[in-house]
């Protein structure tokens, strides 16, 4: 059995039929081939699958595709192309805040949401905000540094 599904993904309207049990992450990856959304645990603890659902970060592995009906979904691909992440991406690159890259889309989405909601988080707050994002490669410090530098640069930019 499949159900019709209408939603907006990265600004484009999508009409598909899906099985009710299909997760949003599987739908994005397998059907729309937006493979930048990753799967690391499929139980909401690793953060590899984060996407924005109507502007808020959600775990693509926990949300069913049908639950996103009528909503606006933004994935790493859409956010990257829109330029919304440009300064974070630059800081991650300069600071080498990724190795294998598998956690990176989720890290960027967490960082993006943190910076939208908290004006000037300190290192401790950045670490706390990342507490739902598992990275096995970096040891986290470079990621914290990259986010901290982006905050500084945005503050300078705003002041300038």
């Amino acid at each position, binding site marked *: 059995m499949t159900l019709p599904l209408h939603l907006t993904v990265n600004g484009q309207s999508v009409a598909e039929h899906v099985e009710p049990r299909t997760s949003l992450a599987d739908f994005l990856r397998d059907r729309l081939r937006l493979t930048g959304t*990753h799967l690391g*645990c499929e*139980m909401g603890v*690793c953060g590899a699958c984060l996407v924005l659902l109507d502007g808020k970060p959600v775990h693509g592995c926990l949300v069913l595709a049908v639950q996103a009906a009528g909503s606006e979904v933004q*994935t790493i691909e859409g956010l990257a192309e829109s330029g919304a992440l440009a300064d974070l991406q630059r800081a991650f*690159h300069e600071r080498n805040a990724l190795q*294998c*890259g*598998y956690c990176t889309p989720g890290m960027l989405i967490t960082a993006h949401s943190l910076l939208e909601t908290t004006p000037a988080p300190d290192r401790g707050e950045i670490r706390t905000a990342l507490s739902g994002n598992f990275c096995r490669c*970096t040891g986290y410090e470079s990621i914290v540094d990259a986010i901290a530098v982006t905050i500084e640069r945005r503050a300078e930019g705003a002041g300038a």
Partner: protein
Amino acid sequence: MSDRPAHIGQPHLRHNALRHLAGRGAYVSDLQLPRMLHAAFLRSPMAHGLITALDVEEARTAPGVVAVFTAAELNARCKSWTSGLGHFAGMVSVPQNILAEREVLWAGHPVAMVVARSRAEAEDACERILLDLDELEPVSGVDEVLLPGAPLAADGLESNLCFRTELKTEGVAQAFARAAHVVEGDYAFGRHTPVTLEPRAVVADYTPSSGQLTVHHGTQTPYQFQDIYARQFGLPDHKVRVIAPDVGGSFGMKLHLYNEEMAAVAATLILHRPVRFVADRLESFVSDIHAREHHVRARMALDADGTILAMDVEDRTPIGAFSAYPRTSVVEGNQSIRLMGAPYRMPDYRGELKVLFQNKVQASQYRAVGHPIACQVTEALVDQAAALLNIDPWEIRARNVVPDDAYPCTSPTGYQFEKLSHEKSLRLLREMIDYDGLRRDQAELRNAGIHRGIGLATFVEITNPGAAFYGVGGARISAQDGAVVRLTPGGEVHCAISVTEQGQGTETIMAQIVADQLGVNPDQVKVTTGDTDTTPSGGAAWACRGAGIGGETALRAGRKLARRIAEIAGAVLQADPDTLALRDGAVVDAATGVERLTLAEVGRIATYRPETLPAGTDNSLSVAQHFAPTGYPFGFTNGVQAALVEVDVETGMVRLLKHWVVEDCGRIINPLLVDEQIRGGVVQGLGPALFEECLYDENGQLQNGSLADYLVPMACEMPDIIIGHVETPTEDTILGAKGVGEAGTAAAGAAVMNAVNDALSPFGARLMQTPMTPARILAALCVGQG
């Protein structure tokens, strides 16, 4: 030739990181091929048992199912494999097959394979398979598994002993007899597992018309798997192509042979369609290798003024019901007993190793193989000795490390050290951490009821392994690497090399090295890796060999091409090639630096106008170079780590306040990437020291096999890590680089354990078991005060 290393040593950024930052990584788990099928496995629910009934008929007719395989169909396609290395005399392990035939050996052992249109349908069909097992008593203990009459982990074994060895110097008994002091302990290390964020993934694709098998495989060692697939399935190796694109973490876990990958290959050979298997996280916990369960009884003998005389170590390490293939599960224990005491001037030693079978997931090599065990045991004993003799922990290390001017030298376990820098490293660390200041703060805070601890750990790391590691034991595991470097017709450079990239920055450092040989920018060097059809065969990534061995390969290939370019340019310019050099993208006069011919012009002439070259000029702008390490069997590195922790003695919680590493990895090719290798490695050492443990019950059932239950280090718990360097290049190579990938993991646990015990010292409490969970810390405090 280019004469200035303009790029080696610079913090160049990783180009391939940009794709990941845009969500454009290309992992095996992302791959979809036309007509691709999905695999799921029915696994044994019991740790040990005999199959009495297996009925797959109902599954065969389930929606979406294309095939259901049991051992009868799949094992027949593939030769069985048996783990062993010639230099581990007396080692035993039973032969392995893709699916369990009669006996299941661990909870999770694959019994049947379903191949369907989708993974969900394959999983649904697994539920329709009927499996009956007669339970056998599982082997799950340590010492008791060797008692007479103990149940055996697998049919065909005569005992649960996989391997035993003993190393012994002549004077060890005497050293203990004349020692003024002996410190000792029983140290236990919890089994843990690598937990790469991308699980294991494979897409196997066989085309019968061409006889070509292509396996897209998330691995760090594609050539090793090319060889395994060719031999086990009876194919010529040039008809087997293994492609390892982006890999979402590997750390040694993805170089072992697993039943599921072999099953995917067998299935595509039968079905002639691509077959995909991607482990879900629950499957990862019961099928990825586990690592490093050790039970160590150790003693250290010292003279009256705190000079280390000898160590005596017994290490028992359980591994699962068989030894892993093709590297064996013995290497871990072998390195553990050989690295004991390695930083110290210690004349005598006895080490005994017993590798034991159990009915649990196979355990084998994981980042820093054996190092954390040797380091933690040695460094714990050194701290115990310091406390007993009332010597400062830094001071006792400074007195006992092998002096920097005493090289070359050989350890009592037979390791040959070319040149290490323990004294320099200890001095640098002392400065970096303001040791005296930390001790003053610690004393003050103690009066205020705040319990901080400072822990030190010196270490030695094995890198740049030659054939002594596996090759001499008969394993088809390459210690050499190969590169093909070419100048393109447009004057740019391409380097295809056998070492692989899992995010360490392999491609970036190879570009830097080649760029320096050819006088170009690293941006002009495209590096490709991870495809057995398009790169020369080599060892790829294991045991910290990428920079040292792969880098030297790239360097020599680059020099060969530089010479060729100079010869072609010399022919064009009617100049002696020896008077020419390569700089800034051009052939220049070596003496004056005056540009003579651009590389683009060399590329054009050699490619499109070779007839204009004098007769006999070799216009080959592609050169191949292989390199196998010679000289020392291994390129050892060294360093020292320090941890600052705060222990809440009410709750047993440990807070990691700061961590420091001084590391000597020889010539540093890229300081940015080196530091991040160290940081990532440290955190992989801190995890098992504090959180990570695969908990089994007495029935051999894994109790915490999910990412919600198995605790990994997260950002909020990890400290900032400060890094310092000493640079002692190896003289075995032109490049002088050694490895660095495992240094962080080697000693982080030892440093933090010593720090926790330092914090607990006023209470007379001491932990000798990792992970140091709050419950264990509180229990130690009870004993200390009891």
